């Protein structure tokens, strides 16, 4: 089994979503191998289908066009913020090749994030009863997956150098949680490529069956 990584650089949520849909259709049809999209988005607030719009606290930046708003997404999770410095990883993986084991797949994604953070010296973990990945009491990454015909979509958002003030616009994931970033925890700005490369390495080692075949830079 091969893995293709596509790095889209900074791309709008909508454009990245349409790329996801295209690749998803190809993977469903068996025309493309497991694909991981890495990218960053301009300021965007997204809501899953179960999300409550009342979890948006401040509408002003949406009204004045500074922040995009996307609702009704086919992923787990409630409301979240995406923006520059947050590494997005979209897993378009064919679970038919992984015994259709959704639980295992989600556990692997969590392990990829934890191992990536540990390699930067951050002790990350899951928290019982909560979603996402945490550093102590603070949340550093969110996870939300959509499965259609046993092929996954969406994935995670990992705060690398994210401006955390933007999370004040919402109640992240509908919880009153404090968000953090690698920058905040380590006290320094991180090179995104360094984090991207470590993450790809961890995908390769946590999904043992999958071998990295291609790494494409497709910045638009």
């Amino acid at each position, binding site marked *: 089994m091969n893995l293709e990584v596509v790095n889209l650089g900074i791309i709008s949520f909508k454009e990245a979503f349409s790329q996801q849909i295209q690749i998803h259709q190809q993977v469903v049809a068996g025309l493309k191998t497991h694909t991981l999209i890495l990218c960053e988005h301009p300021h965007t607030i997204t809501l*899953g*289908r*179960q999300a409550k719009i009342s979890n948006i606290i401040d509408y002003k930046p949406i009204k004045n066009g500074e922040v995009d708003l996307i609702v009704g997404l*086919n*992923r*787990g*999770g409630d409301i979240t913020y995406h923006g520059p410095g947050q590494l997005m990883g979209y897993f378009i993986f064919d679970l038919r090749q992984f*015994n*259709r*084991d*959704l*639980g*295992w*797949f*989600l*556990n692997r994604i969590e392990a990829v994030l934890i191992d990536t953070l540990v390699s930067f010296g951050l002790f990350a973990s899951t928290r019982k009863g909560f*979603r996402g990945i945490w550093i102590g009491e603070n949340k550093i990454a969110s*996870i*939300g*997956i*959509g*499965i*259609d*015909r046993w092929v996954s979509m969406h994935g995670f958002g990992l705060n690398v150098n994210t401006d955390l003030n933007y999370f004040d616009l919402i109640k992240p994931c509908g919880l009153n949680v404090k968000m953090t970033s690698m920058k905040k925890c380590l006290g320094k700005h991180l090179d995104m490529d360094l984090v991207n490369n470590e993450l790809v390495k961890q995908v390769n080692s946590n999904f043992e069956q999958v071998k990295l075949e291609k790494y494409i830079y497709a910045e638009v």
Partner: protein
Amino acid sequence: MAKVVLPELGEGIEKATVSYWLFKVGQTVKEGDEIVEMATDKAVFNVPSTTGGILKEIVAKDGEEVKVGQVLAIID
């Protein structure tokens, strides 16, 4: 008559919640048609009908939590 149940979802996932039904009672469904969207706290997925026929009864309503193996609908 056939029952559509919540399938095995793998490691550590024992239940899911009905998001919404893609078919109404009385409609004809084909084998493999995705009839209901389900959600866990981390993932959203559709459950296909295991048989063709008329959707006779929706057992698990929108918002209801269902365990793996529990009946979602009856197809006649």
